[in-house]
């Protein structure tokens, strides 16, 4: 496991690594579906689904209604509808996020998924893992581990032609 500088991150190369790992990891698994967490995770999920031939079984989650900071921060201004058009029951769901950090978003996503049914298994994929977990959450597939200063946000962006970049923003 290599620890990269955020400046060294080539999001397209990381995506290729993630895709290869996911393809190998899900080989032979039945009833696979992919669910991305809005917004970066949703872009990744859509591209993974296209590359893996799973576009019919791809969904998107907005975890705003399941977050643990609602009492402190209220509802965000840009909640997007969650869209899951396949049967969650007995499926193996690959949950996809762009950046894995505290684990709180993952927890919210798991809770939301279970309100759609009882999956056989949920696996977690993230493009990058920046550590600093606050909950016992671990990813099954990660393309890179990075250290980012507290107070800064690592943000995935997608250009019009679908290419990914990672940038560091002041949170």
């Amino acid at each position, binding site marked *: 496991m290599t620890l990269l500088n955020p400046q060294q991150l080539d999001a397209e190369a990381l995506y290729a690594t993630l895709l290869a790992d996911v393809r190998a990891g899900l080989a032979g698994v039945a009833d696979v579906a992919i669910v991305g967490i809005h917004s970066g995770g949703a872009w990744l999920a859509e591209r993974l689904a296209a590359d893996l031939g799973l576009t019919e079984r791809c969904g998107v989650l907005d975890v*705003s209604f399941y977050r643990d900071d609602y009492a402190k921060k209220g509802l965000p201004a840009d909640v997007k509808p969650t869209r899951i058009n396949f049967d969650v029951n007995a499926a193996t769901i690959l949950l996809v996020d762009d950046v894995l950090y505290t684990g709180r978003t993952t927890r919210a996503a798991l809770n939301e998924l279970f*309100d759609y049914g009882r999956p056989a298994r949920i696996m977690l994929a993230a493009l990058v893992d920046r550590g600093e977990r606050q909950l016992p959450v671990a990813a099954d597939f990660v393309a890179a581990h990075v250290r980012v200063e507290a107070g800064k946000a690592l943000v995935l962006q997608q250009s019009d032609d679908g290419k990914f970049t990672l940038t560091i923003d002041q949170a």
Partner: protein
Amino acid sequence: MLNPQLNKHGELQHLLSIEGLPKSILNHILDTASSFVGISDRDVKKVPLMRGKSVFNLFFENSTRTRTTFEIAAKRLSADVINLNIQASSASKGESLLDTIDNLSAMHADMFVVRHAQSGAPYLIAKHLQDTGQSHVHVVNAGDGRHAHPTQGLLDMYTIRHYKKDFTNLTVAIVGDILHSRVARSDIHALTTLGVPEVRAIGPHTLLPGGLEQMGVRTFTNMDEGLKGVDVIIMLRLQNERMSGALLPSAQEYFKSYGLTPERLALAKPDAIVMHPGPMNRGVEIDSAVADGPQAVILPQVTFGIAVRMAVMSIVAGTQA
């Protein structure tokens, strides 16, 4: 002027009226509502946002649809809901409105959903909570007198946006008893704020209040003229219980001049939608053939009302004082 619905950051702390709310807040509510619509199609029709919160439905005036949809909305947000039939309890024993509020606050209420026959009652409650150091308790107006019915206004906007996509090229007609209608007032404020270029009010002189032109509304006493080319028709209930004096000759006469029949509906655009806040008086303001016809979206309005009320409650409850 300070808007008592907003906190110092301009966020929605109470929903008392659509009047004075910026377009951005109306759009935030409508956008959030669209994310709540899908919840009702799931196995588990709940989200945990308001877990552990207590919502008190205070209906000082009768209502079935509004009270029920507020109750369902609160339950789908995982709140505990307490319905008080005030008419049959404290108020009839002589307790004042604010004493009732203080007692319920002492039971750790987090939100009051208030319907009252007196215009301004929800404002009085919100101000009282502020003045007594209880500004963490939120107030949602579920209809006050002739003044406002903001969640009905918002669900009407949601319905229009759902079917027509864009507000900025529409002609909307509100037909009937505008004088007594808090729904009409809330609709007019919402429609003009959201950029509808032409809002029409259609009704007899006796039921058209003064000042509509100043609100940017065109008035018509001839229904056939008023309906020409409209995209949306909002019918209002003839409110017999609010009628005092001889404002109308009879319900039959009213239907002749202002009832929405298939023939009159044909004057509107072919894809016009027909709305009604309910309860409907068939044969008084609307013909059954229209109410049950393909252009009526009256039942979808009820369904959307749940998502809109979920949005309002979750936005308001998440706003700090």
